[in-house]
C-alpha cells in the first residue's frame, strides 16, 4: 500500500504545518510508515507552499508525493501546480472561495477560509478546519491522533483558537462526506 497526499497553497496559509501535523498523526500508528516533504518559495510569505505526504505499510523508498490519492488545495495556483499529479481516482478538496476553476471527478468544495473568517474571526485557522475535514476524508488520518499532535504543538490562546477550528472541520468533514462529491464527466477532463 502506498497512499499519497498533496497539500498546496500559498505562503502564510500554514500548508507545511498541516503536512507536519498530519504526518505526525500518521506516525503514531504502529502499522504505518510516513514521509512528509515540502516545497516553498523564498522566505516565509507569499509565493508557493506545498506539502506532500506518503503513507505506506512498508518502508518508504521514495518520499515525495508525485501520484496523489488526495489533493488539498487552498488556492487556485496550488491546485494548478498539482493537478498533473492526480491519480485516476484521486479526491480533490479545495477551498470554496479561493479555488475557482477546477476540473475533476471527485471534488469537495469546502469554504475553509470563509468559515475561519466568519466563525473564528481569523483566516489563519483555515488550515485547522481543513485538517479536521480531512480526518473524515482519508482513512489513514485519525482525528484523535491529529488532535493530539495539534495539542502538543500549541498552547494557551493559540491552542484555544486552533482546537475548536479543527473540531469544526471534523464535523464539517463528516457532513460533506455523507453528501458526496461534486464531479464532472470523464470527457470534460483535460489536464
Amino acid at each position: 500500500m502506498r497512499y499519497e497526499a498533496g497539500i498546496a497553497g500559498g505562503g502564510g496559509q500554514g500548508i507545511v504545518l498541516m503536512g507536519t501535523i498530519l504526518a505526525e498523526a500518521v506516525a503514531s500508528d504502529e502499522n504505518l510508515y510516513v514521509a512528509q516533504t515540502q516545497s516553498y518559495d523564498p522566505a516565509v510569505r507569499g509565493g508557493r507552499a506545498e506539502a506532500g505526504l506518503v503513507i505506506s505499510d512498508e518502508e518508504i523508498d521514495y518520499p515525495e508525493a508525485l501520484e496523489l490519492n488526495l489533493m488539498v488545495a487552498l488556492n487556485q495556483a496550488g491546485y494548478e501546480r498539482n493537478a498533473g499529479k492526480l491519480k485516476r481516482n484521486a479526491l480533490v478538496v479545495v477551498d470554496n472561495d479561493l479555488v475557482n476553476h477546477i476540473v475533476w471527478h471527485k471534488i469537495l468544495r469546502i469554504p475553509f477560509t470563509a468559515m475561519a473568517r466568519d466563525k473564528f474571526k481569523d483566516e489563519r485557522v483555515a488550515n485547522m478546519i481543513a485538517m479536521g475535514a480531512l480526518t473524515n476524508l482519508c482513512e489513514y488520518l485519525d482525528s484523535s491522533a491529529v488532535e493530539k499532535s495539534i495539542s502538543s504543538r500549541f498552547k494557551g490562546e493559540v491552542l484555544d483558537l486552533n482546537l475548536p477550528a479543527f473540531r469544526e472541520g471534523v464535523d464539517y468533514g463528516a457532513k460533506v462526506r455523507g453528501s458526496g462529491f461534486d464531479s464532472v464527466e470523464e470527457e470534460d477532463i483535460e489536464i
Partner: protein
Amino acid sequence: MQKAELLQGNDACVRGALAAGCRFFAGYPITPASEIAHGMARELPPLDGTFIQMEDEIASMGAVIGASLAGAKAMTGTSGPGFSLMQEHISYASIAEVPCVIIDVMRGGPSTGVPTHLAQGDVMQARWGAHGDHPMIVLAPSSVEECFRLTVEAFNLSEKYRTPVVILTDEVIAHMREKVILPSADEIKIFDRRKPTQPPEWFVPYRDPGTGVPPMPAFGEGYRYHVSGLVHDEMGYPTTRADEVDPFIQRLFHKISRDFDKLQWGEEYYTDDSTLDIVAFGSVARAAQRAVKQARERGMKVGLLKLQVLYPFMRRKVTKLMRNSPTILVPEINMGQISREVKRVNQGKCKVETLNKVAHETMTPQEILDKIGEIYA
C-alpha cells in the same frame, strides 16, 4: 526500544550531534540549514553546551575550531554560500588536525541560486573547496534516519582521525520528515578523541603514535603546546624543511587512507544479479531506490549502490559492481560530479552513463526509469 517519532532531516542531524556528544555549535542562519541552528540553540544550553550565532560563517568555523581545541565536540551547519566562506578554516582544521563537523545542506546554486530548492552541486566542493592539498571525509545521508546515524558517525570519524568531516545533505533530505525510531544512548557507539598518556613534559604533540593520529589534549589540561596553520614539526613549531614538511603532509593523508577499506559504507539493493547498476547518493538515491524496484517489477535486472561515504571515494564497492555490470548509471542533480569519480575508477571496465538534472527540483523515479529504459533499449 525507543519510541517512533516523526523527525525532520535537519532535526535528525541535531539529535545525532547531541547523541554523539556535541556540545558546541556556532553558526550563521541560512536556508535550508537554519533548522539545525534553531535546534541546537534550543537543545544545547539546557545541556550546559554552547550555542552561538556568530557574525558570519567564517567566524562560525573559527569558533568551532576554537571550541574543539578547548575540548568540546563542535559542529556548524550551513548551505552553499556559507560553505564557501568556511573553506579557509576547513583548510586550517585539516592542517591543525582539529576534529569538527560541518553540515552543508545543498541548495540550488550557484551563488544565491534558488535558496529554497535542492541541488547536489557542492559534492566536489566538499572535497576540494579548501586551498592546499589535504584529505577530506564527506558523508551523504539519504534519509532522516541516516541523517541521525551519519551525524553520529561524522563525529566519530572526526575524533578518530582528528580531521574535519563534512556531511552533505540537500534541501529535500533536510526538510523532509520521516517516521523513525532512533537508537537509545547505549546502542550508539561513540568515539572520543585519544588523550596523551604520558606526562606533559614528555608530550610531543604531533608525533605519530603509529596510527597516524597523535593524541590530542585540550587547552587547559596541562599539556601546553602550540597549534598552528603553518606546516609544523612534531613539536608544532613552523618548519619549511623538506624533510619535515613531506612526512607531515604524508601523514595527514595516510592517517585516513590507511583505513580506506573501513570506509566503504553504502547500501546495495539487488546488486547480486544486476546487469545495470545505479550509483547514487542523497535524495536522488531515494528516487533510485523506487526506480530500481519498479524496473525489477518490469523484469529489468537493475541494482543500486547507495553511497553513504562520498570521500574518500568508495572505490572498492564501486569497482566491485563494475566487475559484474556492463553499465553503471549515475543520476545526480548537477552536471556530473560523482560521476567523474565513477569514471575515474572505472578505467574502461564498463560503460558509465550519467543522468543530470539542473532544474533544482527533485529527481523522480520516473526520470530514472526512463533512462534505464533508454539504456536497455
